[in-house]
């Protein structure tokens, strides 16, 4: 029974390792490392750290903590900050030493937590996905106005003519932006041309035109064989993913046993060390050096405050409206007929109308997801006003309305930051006065 269970386990872990290797992860440890990790052996720990690092790095490439060097201490730091970012609360992990010598069991638990919590494997699969359509995201951007004065340091550093140099740079930036804008418009024009010229060429009638990638494939046969190879690789990858999914329940059974092992150990030795380390653990979390985590904390605090203010504001508004509404209802009640049947009919009508209005509100506020990539399709507008929109589709005109609304909001934001905007030209005038 034990041997059977062991063999099954080996199969499960091997399929996981095969999937990870297929995803392009560099440092895939052997199934043996996983097994030994359950017993908190020291020897495989460094491998597990490296695995976590190479799994998390592609998802967080813009985080300043990620470094390209093979320094284990830096990798350990990176993994810890990313886990903190996702909200992994097991303190023992953060207390593990930076040389990567201990704690393989903790790492296994963290790994499984990531699989479940952020769909780690599915995210990595999405990244390596091949797509032949013309893609675009619906992300509208809109980073908030920067607080703090970045410009002042440049002014002070640039000597006497700092303000003029700043204006020069701002002008240059504006020209670069205009060129980018023109390039994007050109891209849209050419895309439209390709879509209209290849109408009716696609095998799928609901798509009906070719994308840029498909058109270039038609032009060069060498690319076609390359694309075929890539597609075959992807099929193999997906097959190994399906195999993993089939065996996944066994993996979670095994994880339970790992967790049991940990709890059994914990109750005996680690408790004492924990109480001493708890204080330093607190400090360590606060000293988390990742800039992104700290800025996120600041944002969250600000958001919390704003939500609270919003809540008080709405409560005030609601109570005021409620009192005036009650008065109005009292006034109107005089008109209501006392006959129960008529009253019932009126009440039902009112109920329906209110229900319709609420459902209309709900429909209008459903926004399409902005993180996923969408394929661009050119559709003819037929005589009917509204095209049937299938699930998972959005119309570009709707998105444009949404963007217009966001622009309005942004204008209001600009009005709310008058100090920031007014201070820059004033500074320029002062510098001019100094120079003359």
């Amino acid at each position, binding site marked *: 029974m034990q041997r059977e269970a062991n063999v099954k386990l080996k199969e499960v872990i091997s399929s996981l390792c095969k999937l990870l290797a297929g995803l392009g992860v560099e440092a895939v440890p052997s199934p043996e490392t996983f097994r030994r990790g359950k017993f908190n052996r020291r020897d495989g720990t460094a491998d597990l750290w490296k695995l976590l690092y190479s799994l998390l790095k592609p998802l967080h490439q813009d985080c300043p903590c990620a470094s390209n060097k093979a320094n284990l201490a830096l990798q350990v730091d990176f993994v810890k900050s990313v886990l903190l970012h996702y909200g992994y609360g097991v303190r023992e992990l953060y207390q593990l030493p930076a040389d990567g010598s201990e704690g393989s069991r903790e790492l296994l638990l963290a790994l499984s937590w990531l699989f479940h919590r952020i769909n780690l494997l599915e995210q990595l699969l999405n990244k390596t996905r091949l797509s032949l359509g013309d893609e675009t995201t619906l992300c509208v951007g809109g980073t908030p106005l920067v607080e703090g004065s970045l410009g002042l340091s440049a002014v002070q550093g*640039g*000597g*006497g*003519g*700092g303000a*003029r*140099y700043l*204006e*020069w*740079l*701002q*002008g*240059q930036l*504006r*020209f*670069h932006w*205009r*060129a980018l*804008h*023109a*390039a994007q*418009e*050109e891209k849209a*024009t*050419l895309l439209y041309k390709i879509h209209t010229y290849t109408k009716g060429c696609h095998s799928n009638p609901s798509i009906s035109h070719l994308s840029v990638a498909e058109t270039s494939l038609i032009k060069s046969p060498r690319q076609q064989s390359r694309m075929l190879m890539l597609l075959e690789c992807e099929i193999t990858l997906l097959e190994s993913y399906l195999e993993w999914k089939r065996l996944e329940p066994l993996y979670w059974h095994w994880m339970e046993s790992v967790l049991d092992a940990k709890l059994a150990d914990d109750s005996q030795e680690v408790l004492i060390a924990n109480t001493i380390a708890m204080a330093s653990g607190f400090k360590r979390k606060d000293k988390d050096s990742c800039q992104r985590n700290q800025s996120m904390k600041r944002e969250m605090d600000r958001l919390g405050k704003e939500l609270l203010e919003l809540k008080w504001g709405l409560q005030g508004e609601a109570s005021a409206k409620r009192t005036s509404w009650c008065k109005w209802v009292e006034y109107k009640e005089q008109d209501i007929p006392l006959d129960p049947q008529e009253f019932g009919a009126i009440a039902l009508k009112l109920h329906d109308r209110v229900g319709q209005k609420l459902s209309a509100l709900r429909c209008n506020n459903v926004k399409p997801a902005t993180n996923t990539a969408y394929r661009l399709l050119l559709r003819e507008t037929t005589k009917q006003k509204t095209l049937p929109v299938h699930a998972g589709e959005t119309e570009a005109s709707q998105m444009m309305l949404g963007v217009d609304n966001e622009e309005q909001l942004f204008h209001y934001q600009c009005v709310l930051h008058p100090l920031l905007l007014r201070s820059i030209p004033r500074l320029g005038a002062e510098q001019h006065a100094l*120079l*003359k």
Partner: protein
Amino acid sequence: MSIVTVQLGQCGNQIGQELFNVISNDSHSLRGQCPKTESEAYSICSQERFFSEGQNGASARAVLVDMEPKVISHTISTAAKSGRWKYGDQSSFCQKQGSGNNWANGFCVHGPRHEEDIMDLVRREVEKCDRLGGFFNMMSMAGGTGSGMGTYITQCLRDTYPHSFILNQVTWPYGTGEVIVQNYNSVLTLSHLYQSSDAILVHENDTVHKICAQLMNIKQISFKDVNKVIAHQLGSVLQPAYTEGVSEYNRNPLGDLMKSMVCHPEYKLLGLRNIPQMSETSLAYSVFTWPGLLKHLRQMLIANAKMEEGIDWQVRPPAGGLPPAEKGTHNKQLRFNTSLANLLILRGKDVQSADTGGFMDPALYTSWLPPGVASSTWRTPMSFNRYEKSATLVSNSQFLLKPLDGIVGKAWNMFASRAYVHQYTQFGISEEDFLDSFTALEQIIASYTHL
């Protein structure tokens, strides 16, 4: 990546036609020493930039505007005679009567009245482009249509296409010009253009006249000769070239020009120097080297010389180590021309070997812009317009300080006695508008003086 040219007034239309001639000849000429792929890439880029392909051959991406029909019909027929290119059938706009050299008439009356028709023509040209690279407006400053209506049209272009690049080419009138109110017209044009245009490229009639007389040895100088020289200079700026570190012909020439030269909103005046410039007969006997050409060009920049002959070699850049405040007076004493930014465009054989280090000298530039940012170079191995090697310098410097000062001074003297002002007020330009324009130009002069 296409540029739409708007030819305004008599001057603009005539120069525009010469410009398209030069460009068309240049992109079709055979060059023995360059590989065929290079040549083809050059001419495809140039054709796309300036001409649109129709059923009847290449038609220029241009809109012709004038109040009188005579000049436009002459321009169109001359173009068609060349056989290689022509103007589009529907791209010209003209009326029966001119503006009488009255800026206010052009700006306040003709402009708004014909705005819709003209912008319609422009829109049609823009729609033919896959990507709009910007507008190139050509006009003179002294007349009524070119300057007044041209300024109004530039404003309309800016309002309709807020994200486009607008380059205005302006012809400075002769100092002893025929039009009495040319100084008023100039002042009003420049002050208004500064608001809507991105850069103003200036050609002085006096300078070009001297070039024709002394360098090209033309005895009877007609407007056609002057226009040919201006067209040659403009063509050497607008034809394709490689910006630094890029391996394809630049697809955003106006944008790149603006990025390197006119990023600061107070400094928009650009001057142009091009060498060598000589008659065809002398050309056959001359040999040029890049070091020689660049040395001359550099001294022309420093000493504020308008052409190759008569350069003052005594003027030297100041030695380093002077604080900026003293530098101003020091430079004034030496008649040294401080630059804000320079763009070198080199065309011809062995262009990669040309050393432009002389232009990176920080002493040439103002203190607050590092020379790495202020100086840029474009190159192409294709020779231009029969010159085996040619070098052009587009410069944002104190070149135009003295002429500008002169014009403003003369205009102010006239304005002080309110001479001819009633001609303007009757069409809608009030005395306040004049004062605003004077103030704006004084501000520009002050900025350039303290460079």
